[in-house]
């Protein structure tokens, strides 16, 4: 039992790490990865939503009639998104400002709905939570990796600390919109390369 739960958790970390393997949830990974801080914030907010929506969906999986299941999932996800939104507004306001409309937009993040539909609606709550947590952490790590790349190259810093020394002229392109696309594209290529082995 414990082993299978661990398996559900692990798959989100590598095998099916959402933005790279499943190519889902690309918008936030492009938009909020200007710094590691934003990226991790976004990742944790998403994780919260994944975990709780998965939990609730799994708990209600036998009650929700299949005809309205998508609507029900959307309500559940939207509820938790709003909770996150309010909580972030109250406690981490600067981060909330930086993430902007991408917090409410977690609701249309395909990962949330995708996991609810593909996993939580068929599995018990515990496994679903493990799945949501795994996916969420995998997503957070992915965001953080892209964020670290963009922040360090584009700004010369990592979590606010200078990394390449004072003489480094930051490669600002990485922080601009085109840089986000190019960077993610190349990271995806590297992931494809690693995945092949």
């Amino acid at each position, binding site marked *: 039992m414990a082993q299978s739960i661990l398996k559900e958790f692990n798959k989100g970390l590598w095998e099916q790490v959402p933005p790279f393997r499943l190519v889902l949830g690309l918008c936030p990974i492009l938009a909020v990865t200007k710094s590691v801080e934003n990226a991790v914030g976004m990742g944790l907010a998403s994780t919260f939503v994944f975990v709780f929506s998965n939990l609730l969906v799994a708990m*209600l999986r036998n*009650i*929700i*009639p299949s*005809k*309205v299941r998508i*609507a*029900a999932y959307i*309500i*559940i996800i*939207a*509820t938790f998104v*709003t*909770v996150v939104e*309010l*909580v972030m*507004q*109250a*406690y981490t*306001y*600067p981060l909330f*400002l930086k993430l902007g409309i991408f917090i409410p937009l977690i609701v249309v993040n395909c990962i949330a709905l995708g996991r609810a539909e593909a996993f939580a609606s068929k599995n018990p709550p515990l496994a679903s939570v493990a799945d949501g947590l795994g996916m969420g952490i995998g997503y957070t790590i992915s965001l953080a990796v892209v964020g670290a790349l963009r922040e360090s190259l584009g700004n010369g810093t990592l979590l606010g600390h200078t990394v390449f020394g004072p003489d480094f002229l930051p490669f600002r392109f990485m922080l*601009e*919109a085109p840089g986000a696309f190019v960077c993610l594209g190349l990271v995806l290529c590297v992931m494809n390369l690693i995945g092949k082995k």
Partner: protein
Amino acid sequence: MREMIKMVVVLTVLSAFSGGLLASVRTGTKDKIEQQVLKFQKAPAIKQILSDVSNDPLQDRFKIMDKEQELTFFVGKHDGKPDAVTFETAGKGFGGDLGLMVGINIESDAIIGVCVTTHSETPGIGSRAKDDPKFAAQFAGMTMDKNFATKKDGGDIDAMSGATVTSKGVCVAAQQAQDIYTRLKPEIQKQIAQMAN
């Protein structure tokens, strides 16, 4: 039919649950959020403008109803004498409203400084209005009889190159401040006098 009823019931209960949860979270965070907005959006701008005051302008604030709009004024004291007010006005930028905090010395009727609070401009270009010290510095020291418009429109302000609309938006906000200040000066003085007591 039974299924139909079930569907309706489930969705209603779900919605009710969601509404209830959100309402309670909302109530729990409401005050905190208001504080945060004040702290993170207004405070830095006010601090920047009234950098050498002896009091905390966030504490010494009052509200005046201007037409249908409620305006909050923050008062700055130099050597215990309240001689500066700051308040926020809005101009139109690229993608919507652009908030501008304007500080005015009530004795000389001259602008102490301006600072952009909120904006949703193109990253990298419009946001220069917030970061570009040269642009904002142009306003400092200007008295109320000056024309706060870009040189293109026959005023005294040099527009930021490549951000004409944003520059215009800032100017519009400044003109509004000018307008409000001239209109409400007696009221402001009255309030400040009250406060001093």
